């Protein structure tokens, strides 16, 4: 690897870490601005001022905000996400399993959605403005336009209720055999795929069409390449940077935006965990989950940036 790439990559990573720190400040500040605090939440409306003051002292809520921030940040960096107020459980331990579940679901949704979106995009370009293109675009747009819960319930109605192929409730547990687990996540994964498909497909189509105007595409046509090979070999490699960007955005959505789908299918992932604890005003959990989501989002975007840099032959092979 040559030095200009390393430099650019190092810049992106440093920027990402800085951004993550800024986000952690925002998350912390945001939870401080909310009316009421944990002590109030625990003791309820009927608490006496004395007991509130006692609990605050006990929880360290009387310290200045910046001290509490650094205390929290220090904990996060050493793997200690704190203790959940509502249940008294260690957050890191309860998140671990759920994060794994969310990543598992996102992974399999992505494995289906990304190649499918790109292939559909390539096909749409090959038959651009014809009926195949319009059909693909129309179906993809329709699937994106329907709200996720609607798609989820339609899937449940047909696959779980009517035909009874897949379970309507995606219960997973530790030590579950792989096959059963896959069967359990089939419907939520399908719902997620349908939600993210169109965005990636349409971006692939647009990015490649943009490149199709280039002189080198004409050169390829004049070498006698078939239309599909022109797109695959000559147009696609030059359209890859914007496509990667959209793919990464959607991957991030698969991880941090699955709340609705997880709730519909009662899937024990991060989204459900977050929703549960928001209603209980469990600030440490909300902070921890928020930070993890931000980290996922930022790191996927860094990967997209780096991939775009590496995909550029001018940067990979300087003069």
């Amino acid at each position: 690897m040559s030095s200009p790439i390393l430099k650019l990559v190092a810049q992106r990573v440093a920027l990402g870490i800085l951004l993550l720190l800024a986000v952690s400040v925002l998350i912390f500040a945001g939870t401080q601005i909310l009316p009421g605090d944990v002590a109030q939440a625990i003791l309820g409306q009927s608490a006496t001022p004395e007991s509130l003051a006692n609990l605050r002292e006990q929880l360290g809520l009387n310290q200045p905000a910046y001290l509490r921030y650094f205390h929290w940040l220090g904990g996060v960096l050493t793997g200690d996400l704190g203790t959940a107020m509502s249940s008294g459980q260690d957050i890191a331990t309860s998140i671990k399993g759920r994060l794994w579940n969310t990543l598992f679901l996102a992974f399999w949704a992505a494995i289906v959605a990304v190649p499918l979106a790109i292939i559909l995009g390539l096909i749409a370009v090959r038959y651009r403005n014809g009926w195949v293109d319009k059909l693909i675009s129309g179906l993809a747009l329709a699937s994106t336009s329907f709200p996720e819960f609607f798609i989820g319930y339609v899937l449940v109605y047909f696959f779980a209720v009517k035909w009874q192929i897949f379970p309507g409730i995606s219960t997973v547990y530790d030590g579950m055999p792989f096959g059963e687990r896959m069967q359990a996540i089939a419907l939520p994964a399908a719902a997620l795929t349908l939600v993210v498909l169109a965005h990636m497909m349409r971006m692939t189509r647009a990015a490649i069409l943009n490149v199709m105007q280039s002189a080198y595409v004409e050169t390829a046509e004049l070498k006698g390449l078939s239309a599909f090979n022109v797109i695959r070999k000559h147009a696609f490699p030059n359209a890859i940077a914007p496509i990667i960007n959209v793919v990464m955005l959607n991957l991030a959505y698969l991880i941090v935006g699955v709340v609705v789908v997880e709730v519909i299918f009662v899937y024990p992932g991060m989204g459900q965990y977050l929703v549960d604890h928001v209603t209980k005003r469990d600030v440490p959990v909300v902070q921890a989950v928020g930070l993890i989501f931000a980290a996922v989002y930022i790191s996927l975007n860094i990967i997209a940036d780096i991939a775009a840099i590496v995909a550029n032959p001018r940067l990979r092979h300087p003069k």
Partner: protein
Amino acid sequence: MADSKAKPGLLLDIRNLRIEATVFPPGEPPKNIVLVHDVSLTLEKGKVLGLIGESGAGKSTIGLSSMGYGRGGVRITGGEVILNGRDILKGGKDGFRKLRGREVCYVAQSAAAAFNPAHRLMDQVVEATLLHGTATRAEAEKRAVALFKKLSLPNPETIGERFPHQVSGGQLQRVMTAMALCSEPDLIVFDEPTTALDVTTQIDVLAAIKDAIRDTHVAALYITHDLAVVAQVSDEIMVLRHGRLVEWGGTRQIIKEPRQEYTNALVSVHEIEHQEQKPGTTPFLSVKNVTAAYGRSDIKVLKNVSVDIYPGQTLAVVGESGSGKSTLARAITGLLPPEAGTVTFDGRPLANRLADRPKEDLRQLQMIYQMADVAMNPRQTVATIIGRPLEFYFGMRGRERDRRVAELLDKIEMGKGFSDRYPAELSGGQKQRVCIARSLAAKPKLIICDEVTSALDPLVANGILKLLLELQKEENVAYLFITHDLATVKSIADSIAVMYRGEVVRYGPKSKVLSPPFDAYTDLLLSSVPEMEIGWLEKAIKGRRMASAGN
């Protein structure tokens, strides 16, 4: 299929070719236009036919028809294209695919754009050969390296490992020629292969192409708008205009004894009468020891440049791309504040930065650009475009403004009827005229013309140059004329500055600059301008003292 109509030795026989396209004019229903009207031509094996004409003459369209290809919705609607004894138009899509890259190959105008930036050169050069299965990869690569050698590319063994952006424009054009030759086709279509290159690089590429054609016995259609270039490589020349045949004959006959008036106009295009004016006593604009760089870079784009401009006269700045010509214009106008040196105007220094200059200083310096169509707002009418400086500098409104716009339109030899038109409805030459009117509207002392005729056809460019000279007489405006085209310089300049790598290497009145003894660079530049003379190329290559920078 053996065609009884085919003559022996004939490679390509195009009969009554008709090509149409659908255009979508703004505000009107789509309509069909005929681009090529029943053109016929024949080409024998191993011969070179030059197709020449202005843009819109249909030369590229005809060239590409030999591969059954129509650019952007262009359709071949009539006639026959008989290649190697069969009508390829009857072969359908599969037939086209089999002949493209095998029997007929294409060399594009801009190799820099025609190579895929994502793949190594070698992969692209051998791609067609492998696709058609005429050689194994090892054989094809060996052939490619041999071709790189023949086209005198540096490091022929390893240049194929590079990516397009790692190779200069002139070299890329030769690699593209090698790519076309690699699959050993019967015919190559060269589409303006040297037009995008600097004049000093063009000559090398031209010589390389000529040698390659001679040694491989491939036939070629050589498309260009430059008669002097085509005269160096062609056996025959066909002159086209508006999609119709004007004249077709041997190269010597076309350039020495043209039979048609249009051909004659093309041959004698650069003859403009202009009496050189002696420099006056005091220049109104002086550039003194200006040094400039982009950003905080250590690479100085201008190094200690000094020139003077006298009222009502033309200073031509010549040099190849990257020599700093346009940067000089940017330094004078304040777009790029110089790091050192001053620009004085009427005896007082001009502020370095554009933002610090008063309106009056801005008015005195106007610019015209190479690309007229992107220098105008496509959503404004001609009247609005020309009227804008009148409002901005003189506060003219209403009828007074309209009267002045009409006057200016009259000056650029376009009638009042054009005032309501949009730029998209004008031809290239008309657009440039509107830009000239816009700059004149400010009544400036100096107009900076940055390659204003480079994107135009020779005859249209000629008209623009004549107009500029007339306007100079009427308005006593001075020009700073930036160009890489020495023929233009010869026709209009009073004094000349030759630039090379950021420095002025030769400067003075035209007659002095263009008479010997020359410095090495000016000599290279002058000797590289193609002359309409058979055998000029060989003579020029032999007489060179210095290799061109683009090599």
